[in-house]
């Protein structure tokens, strides 16, 4: 750039037929693929004018594991383990969403008690997801303390999972037709313990961030997106609600008796990083209230549907009864055919509408299974959200978007 051009720029006069001139030479900067602040393996190729981002492009697909292809060769139960590994911060939601899709196809009625237990588990998963996202957002703005406070409670949630199914990260507590086990006394004790000990910590976490001058300076007006653009980009979940659209699958298309519970949909106004943080925080409170209601009104009855051909029988039954042994064998070997059909079922995942589009041709495996992964769809808005800002803003924008690599690539 010549000196004359700089003078023109500084004097504020624009020469129309000249291409845009930049003060500095443009730099190409790779943010990622592996960098502590990118929270996963995705590369952002940013074009920088000095400290300002003027363009960006992402490369994804670093951990693509071909889940949709694998699913074409697996019986319905075995696909559960694929869904675990998509949004690994809230795997129970993915599992239950998948089971509900299959139940819709098979026409299995799930008893109320199982539905309530599912709600409890899904809301715990949502809390864990939001804890990770908000805690790490704090770390990315330089506040490690909040993360230390709150991360312990994600551990407590994992202990509840452990009580329910023995696994912590790759949970498999759900079954087609209900839950594997009923809520044990110990599990109820742990959930109640969580409900009493977590709120004070969450309050403290809020005190640390919500009116913190540094945090507000770093997040307000950063990475904003309008409601209209967010809709066009296919945002769902907290990211869309932060932009001011009160769309929540739990309210609009209730599944698993969400219609029985009273809760609010928190919405933001500007769609910026601060709003996303606040919406997630408020959602944790709502989830806590849902769990409380579900525990209080937990119906009596069985925790699985009367559908022996689909519900994996309890192991004790398998040892004692011939029918259970036969069904156990048939289910485990994937001998059971599903009816012909085409299902779309959506659940509110940690990041938004997680949809399962399943085409069954009457075989024991899906003919085609497509996951509508919220991360994958909204991550393409990321360059638009950070153009004009600096690298430090781009970092907090990314962590507040809650992009999970497993869900992005599938």
């Amino acid at each position, binding site marked *: 750039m010549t000196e004359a051009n700089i003078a023109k720029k500084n004097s504020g006069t624009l020469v129309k037929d000249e291409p845009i001139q930049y003060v500095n030479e443009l730099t190409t900067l790779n943010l990622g693929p592996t960098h502590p602040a990118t929270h996963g393996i995705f590369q952002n190729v940013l074009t920088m004018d000095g400290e300002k981002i003027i363009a960006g492009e992402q490369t*994804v*697909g670093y951990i*693509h594991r*071909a889940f*949709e*292809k*694998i699913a*074409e*060769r697996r019986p319905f139960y075995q696909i559960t383990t694929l869904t675990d590994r998509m949004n690994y911060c809230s795997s129970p939601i993915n599992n239950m969403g998948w089971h509900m899709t299959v139940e*819709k196809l098979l026409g299995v009625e799930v008893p109320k008690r199982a539905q309530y237990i599912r709600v409890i588990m899904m809301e715990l998963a949502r809390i864990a997801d939001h804890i990770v996202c908000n805690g790490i957002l704090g770390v990315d703005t330089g506040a490690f303390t909040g993360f230390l406070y709150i991360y312990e409670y994600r551990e407590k949630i994992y202990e509840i999972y452990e009580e329910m199914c023995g696994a912590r990260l790759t949970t498999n507590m759900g079954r087609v037709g209900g839950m594997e086990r009923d809520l044990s006394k110990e599990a109820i004790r742990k959930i109640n313990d969580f409900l009493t000990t977590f709120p004070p910590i969450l309050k403290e976490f809020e005190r640390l961030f919500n009116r913190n001058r540094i945090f507000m300076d770093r997040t307000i007006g950063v990475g904003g997106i309008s409601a209209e*653009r967010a*809709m*066009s*980009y*296919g945002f769902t979940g907290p990211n869309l609600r932060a932009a001011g*659209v009160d*769309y929540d699958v739990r309210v*609009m*298309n209730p599944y698993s008796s969400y219609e029985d519970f009273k809760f609010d949909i928190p919405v933001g106004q500007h769609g910026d990083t601060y709003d996303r943080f606040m919406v997630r925080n408020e959602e944790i409170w709502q989830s806590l209230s849902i769990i409380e209601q579900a525990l209080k009104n937990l119906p009596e009855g069985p925790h699985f549907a009367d559908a022996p051909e689909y519900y994996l029988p309890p192991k004790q039954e398998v040892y004692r009864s011939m029918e259970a042994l036969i069904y156990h064998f048939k289910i485990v*070997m*994937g*001998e059971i055919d599903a009816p012909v*059909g*085409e*299902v*779309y079922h*959506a659940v509110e995942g940690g990041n938004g*509408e997680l*949809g399962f*589009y399943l*085409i069954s041709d009457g075989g024991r495996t899906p*003919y*085609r299974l*497509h996951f*509508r992964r919220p991360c*994958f*769809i*909204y*991550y*393409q*808005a990321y360059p638009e959200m950070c153009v004009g800002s600096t690298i430090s803003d781009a970092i907090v924008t990314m962590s507040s978007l809650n992009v999970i690599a497993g869900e992005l*690539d*599938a």
Partner: protein
Amino acid sequence: MLNNQSVAEEIVKKFGDDVYDFEEPFGLLTLTTTREQIIPMLEYLKNHSEFKIGFLTDITGVHFPDTTPATEYCVVYHLHSFIHNFRVRIKVFLAEADLHIPTASEVYASANWMERETFDFFGIIFDGHPNLVRILNMEEMDYHPMRREYPLEDATREDKIDALFGR
């Protein structure tokens, strides 16, 4: 509140013979259209004064190798109206010899990556797409892996016979 019947009637009134195969699997209105009409239809549903079906939930592809050659590939659009809480599924069938369909990325920004994914996995070419390159697989790949002719397991391996695994 919208219902399937009224929306289907309106669409038939506007598009006539270009929409057919109306279905309601599990209550979701499903219809088929031609590739010439898909973009006008998406725009029509989005800008309709009453429907306001303005959210693109998903675009994906399906491969049906066992049907007639003219309907071997299918592009599936899921749309959603937040105002009426109404979902609709639109299908477009394509022949393998002519895998072209106009892009929806002018109507919905989210269509960009969804179409790239569909191209990546099925080789369906979205005409007018700003950046139609592979997104999840590597660039050097010369086939489209979600097509049914590519089996999941390596066909040359003899220790992985399907019969041994109950398949």
